[in-house]
């Protein structure tokens, strides 16, 4: 799928640059279509064959319209148009461009006539046209359409398509469609058993429905399928499909868990470093996430207004901007409020809580209390369909990658830079670090800014999967605390392990206990957990009596 997407993106790019390739295709199709104007049915047949040979997907609706007798030549400008019945006339659109041309009377257009022989030809070639499309995604769509409609006349086209298909994904879909069609339409036991064996290879709820359909019994408990060999094959297929589906749902659960974990990691990691270095809990951390999400909204609005063509890059621009905006706000908070509460962590907690109320209300006043629309760039929308039962959405995949990237960058910063060294020194022993000449106040301000900036970047990521509202941060703050408490402070690995284990446990409990009970269970488990390890999984070891 990835190469497919890249091809598509490339095409868009080519289109944007105004190169000639698609235009040339357009001209081809136009020329071939003109053949349909011929009076002779033989000439029309040749034109259909040329259109099919061109492999242009846009010919599909035109041929469909032709089949149903809805293809016309407009008298006014001699264009080939597709007409739809409206009262007393036709609503017509240009066959090539899809441009709506308004309504015309019955007499203003002349129908392109079709006979039975031609109808047969068009029917057969329609499938071949879509199945033989140059775009693999279009071929998959065509195969899936056949899979669902199971028309017996498609079997030859499918077999031909399978023979020349080179892309493995498309080939699998074609085989699935062929097997489903054979199972539904064939009379021959051997063919149907073979078809069920093919279907058994797929892990897909739709295929399961097909196989289960063979085993349906009527009201008296007698099987509706008379053929015992087919029933046995269906049972075998069903078993294999269900095993496959169980694995798929396990993988889906793991993916969901890792995805939730990476969101928690992004939200909690800033909290963990400020708590580690300064010993203060920033209750306004969730609001930094929220501000990051609103920064994304503003950046996207600017893109929509000024550079609509580059909308796909808006998120890449939003990440550094959100980092800087929330980072600067964070430094401001540290210099303006937290500095004055030095050594009073509980009061800091209260003051930052007050700040979070103010920030929430300020955003509510400026942007309104309702959700704001933040768009997905095209490279983040859609999903990677591994098999029918396992669909991984691109935005989740990107967020996992982004979280890991942020984690790695932060790790490098702390391990390799001189600022990181100073930060670690302050975390371990503040008075000693201070007496060695480290400006602890500066380290505090930078750390707070860094933590807030990461929260802002988390906000950019969250804007892609959650509602951007003034309450966005509130939803994550308690979970982030739990990550910090569970993972311990002073070691980023603790945050990583904490976030992912919380995410995974949450997602694995959900199917059994429901989302709410799962959450309650986790909260209780963490309260019990800190009995054993009051300072978290990865506690900083030291000789201090009370750290």
């Amino acid at each position, binding site marked *: 799928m990835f190469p497919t997407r890249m091809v598509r993106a490339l095409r868009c790019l080519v289109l944007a640059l105004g190169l000639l390739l698609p235009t040339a295709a357009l001209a081809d199709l136009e020329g071939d279509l003109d053949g349909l104007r011929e009076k002779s049915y033989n000439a029309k047949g040749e034109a259909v064959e040329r259109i099919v040979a061109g492999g242009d997907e846009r010919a599909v609706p035109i041929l469909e319209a032709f089949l149903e007798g809805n293809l016309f030549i407009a008298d006014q400008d001699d264009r080939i148009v597709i007409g739809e019945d409206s009262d007393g006339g036709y609503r017509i659109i240009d066959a090539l461009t899809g441009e709506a041309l308004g309504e015309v009377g019955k007499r203003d257009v002349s129908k392109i006539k079709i006979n039975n022989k031609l109808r047969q030809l068009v029917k057969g070639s329609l499938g071949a046209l879509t199945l033989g499309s140059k775009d693999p995604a279009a071929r998959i769509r065509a195969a899936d359409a056949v899979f669902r409609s199971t028309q017996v006349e498609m079997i030859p086209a499918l077999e031909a398509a399978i023979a020349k298909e080179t892309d493995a994904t498309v080939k699998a879909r074609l085989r699935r469609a062929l097997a489903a069609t054979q199972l539904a339409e064939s009379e021959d036991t051997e063919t149907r058993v073979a078809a069920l064996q093919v279907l058994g290879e797929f892990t897909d709820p739709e295929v399961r429905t097909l196989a289960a359909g063979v085993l349906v019994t009527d009201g008296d408990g007698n099987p509706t399928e008379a053929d015992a060999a087919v029933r046995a094959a269906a049972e075998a297929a069903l078993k294999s499909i269900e095993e496959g589906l169980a694995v798929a749902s396990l993988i889906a659960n793991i993916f969901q868990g890792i995805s939730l974990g990476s969101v928690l990691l992004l939200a909690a990691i800033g909290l963990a470093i400020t*708590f580690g270095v300064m*010993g*203060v*809990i920033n209750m306004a951390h969730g609001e930094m996430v929220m501000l990051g999400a609103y920064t994304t909204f503003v950046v996207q609005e600017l893109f929509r207004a000024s550079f609509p063509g580059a909308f796909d890059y808006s998120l890449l621009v939003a990440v550094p901007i959100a980092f800087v905006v929330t980072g600067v706000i964070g430094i401001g908070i540290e210099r303006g*409020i937290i500095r*004055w*509460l030095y*050594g*009073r*962590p*509980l*009061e*800091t*907690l*209260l*003051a930052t*809580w*007050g*700040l*979070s*109320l*103010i*920030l*929430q*209300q*300020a955003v*509510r*006043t400026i942007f309104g209390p309702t959700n704001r629309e933040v768009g997905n760039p095209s490279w983040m929308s859609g999903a990677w369909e591994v098999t029918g039962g396992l669909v991984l959405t691109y935005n989740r995949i990107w967020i996992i990658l982004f979280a890991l990237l942020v984690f790695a960058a932060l790790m490098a910063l702390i391990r390799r830079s001189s600022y990181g060294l100073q930060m670690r020194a302050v975390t371990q022993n503040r008075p000693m670090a201070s007496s060695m000449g480290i400006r602890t106040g500066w380290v505090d301000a930078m750390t707070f800014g860094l933590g807030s900036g990461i929260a802002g970047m988390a906000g950019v990521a969250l804007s892609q999967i959650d509602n951007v509202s003034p309450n966005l941060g509130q939803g994550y703050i*308690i979970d982030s*605390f*739990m990550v910090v*408490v569970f993972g311990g402070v002073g070691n980023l690995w603790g945050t990583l392990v904490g976030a992912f284990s919380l995410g995974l446990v949450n997602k694995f409990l959900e199917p059994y206990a429901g989302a*709410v*009970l799962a*959450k*309650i269970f986790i*909260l*209780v488990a*963490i*309260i*019990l957990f*800190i*009995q*054993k390890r*009051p300072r978290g999984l990865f506690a900083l070891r030291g000789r201090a*009596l*009370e750290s």
Partner: protein
Amino acid sequence: MILSNDRNHLLSPLGAKITLAVLLLVAVLVPLLNLSVPPGSAFHVPTYVVSLLGKYLCFAMLALSVDLIWGFCGILSLGHGAFFALGGYAMGMYLMRQIGDRGVYGNPILPDFMVFLNWKELPWYWYGFDAFPFALLMVLLVPGLLALVFGWFAFRSRVTGVYLSIITQAMTFALLLAFFRNDMGFGGNNGLTDFKDLLGFDLQDDGTRAALFVATAVMLVLAYLLCRWIIGSKVGRVLIAIRDAESRTRFLGYRVEYYKLFVFTVSAMLAGIAGALYVPQVGIINPSEFSPANSIEIVIWVAVGGRGYLHGAILGAILVNYAKTYLTGAAPDIWLFFLGGLFIAVTVLLPKGIVGSLDQLRGRLPGGFKPKAQAKVQEMPGE
């Protein structure tokens, strides 16, 4: 923070005397002006004001319970709203059972929401709540037991400071989620409401409202005296020692966790009583009382009034809640700005709160009262 000069005397600080005098005066005057003065008169206190003041006094009691642990033992609980709500639910369950067959569905046993959910039987934990003494016992026992279990786990493993605050917040958040569930059997999202009467007295009646007000004021006075008594006792001395230097106290041989557990449980019970008095006066209890934001708000009442004075908590609760009533009515958008600003201003500029700052001022005045035994204030050691 000033210790009483004579620890055997419950009323030694001036503020304590003033607080008690005002509370008793209000307890007599407000019902009198409500019931005896005709509605047309300028001195008449309308019933809604009586209920509003009653609500403030419940909050004052809740603030008192927080001050007892935060001001005198250094335990910052961000989940005290949970104990308040549990006491409220216990009282609400009694009031629900008193509705009897007067509910919308007319079921003599099951409350309306259970009929609505197609429940056939009363869940076991609702048994006994038709008896008032049992409900009162539960008002004390449920929050007390939760505090005992929670505190035992937390204090035994020496969870202190911000960690404890976060964990208490997780506790109330978990309860919030649990009580939102319909199958918990506590009315889910809507909570318990539509109460009719208490001990046979109609809750809408002016007389009942005035009586509830008096009961709240009297309970507040009693709770205040109880807290003063605890603080003045030897246990109170140890608690203050724990607040100021926990490790040192432990090394001196005191079992710090038991003292903490004791005061935490007492505080939770006080909060439960406050909740039980609150519910009949506002007429509803729902899961939003468990929200972490509510619990943090309680702390700011104490901080505004002055932490570690007891009467400061009462003053702070009443002042902040009056401001809330006024601002949410006059300019709803301003309220959160105000509340947020209050959090910051009090912690940064007025760390001792109103009462503490007044005390300090009084100590500086020439010829003013100077406290003899002033404990050296060492804010939150161990951090």
